[in-house]
């Protein structure tokens, strides 16, 4: 029984508890090993530069280390970690390009799209290479909200907590981001 407990992969929360209570750095190291690759891949996807992504990954884990004591266990550790990652990348992009549009705003004249499961299928079924290019075309905030929803499979409530926005604002932003992505797709691949 004890052996099986030792060999079983420890949960993130158990590792956090182990680190906070015993200052066991091997527990933090395990969390790092578990998630650093994913965080680094997300940073490359957002920042498009390996050096910047490496710096961002280091900053994200430094923030996580400093704020781990205030992690409330209300969310999953991965949800919290990814929200720190996305927020860091959005802030970085905002600082680099002050005049860049982060989210599609309401002033833009976007056609109405029916928002249901069927409507999601068009987005989710885009061929991977094309999807990657579409995500490059839309504002970074829209990209983040789509990645949170469809890649990390976060709920509206979790996204609103991560981005510090209310739920109706997130729903509206998500709808605009989906419309923007589909329009970008049709514009780029309408001939095929």
């Amino acid at each position: 029984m004890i052996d099986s407990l030792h060999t079983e992969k420890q949960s993130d929360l158990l590792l956090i508890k182990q680190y906070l209570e015993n200052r066991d750095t091997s527990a933090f190291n395990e969390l790092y090993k578990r998630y650093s690759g994913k965080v680094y891949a997300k940073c490359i996807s957002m920042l498009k530069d390996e050096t910047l992504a490496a710096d961002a990954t280091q900053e994200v884990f430094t923030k996580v280390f400093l704020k781990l004591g205030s992690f409330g266990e209300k969310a999953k550790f991965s949800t919290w970690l990814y929200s720190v990652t996305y927020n860091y990348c959005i802030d970085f992009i905002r600082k680099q390009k002050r005049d860049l549009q982060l989210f599609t705003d309401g002033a833009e004249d976007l056609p109405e799209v029916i928002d249901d499961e069927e409507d999601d299928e068009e987005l989710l079924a885009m061929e991977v290479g094309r999807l990657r290019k579409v995500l490059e075309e839309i504002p970074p905030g829209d990209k983040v909200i789509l990645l949170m929803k469809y890649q990390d499979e976060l709920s509206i409530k979790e996204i609103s907590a991560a981005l510090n926005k209310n739920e109706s604002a997130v729903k509206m932003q998500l709808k605009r981001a989906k419309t923007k992505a589909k329009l970008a797709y049709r514009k780029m691949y309408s001939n095929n």
Partner: protein
Amino acid sequence: MAANNNFKQLEKEDQEMTPHAPRKIERQVMGLVNTGQFAGNVIELYFTKFIKLFLMLFGADPKEPTELTSEDAQDSGEVR
């Protein structure tokens, strides 16, 4: 959610392209964690002693507050 989710496939491909973060990041992050742990241990060990020393510099009595003098005992009515 629809069965075919190519956002997941995109994530998989991104991770296959960069399966690990560079090793130097791990060294730097774990260096910070170890330094933090060392600082925490130092504070835990010496903080109370530092506070006592600080109070003594401002004229506080270095005696333990639980130690009763004969005058304290008389004041509290305790008979020795």
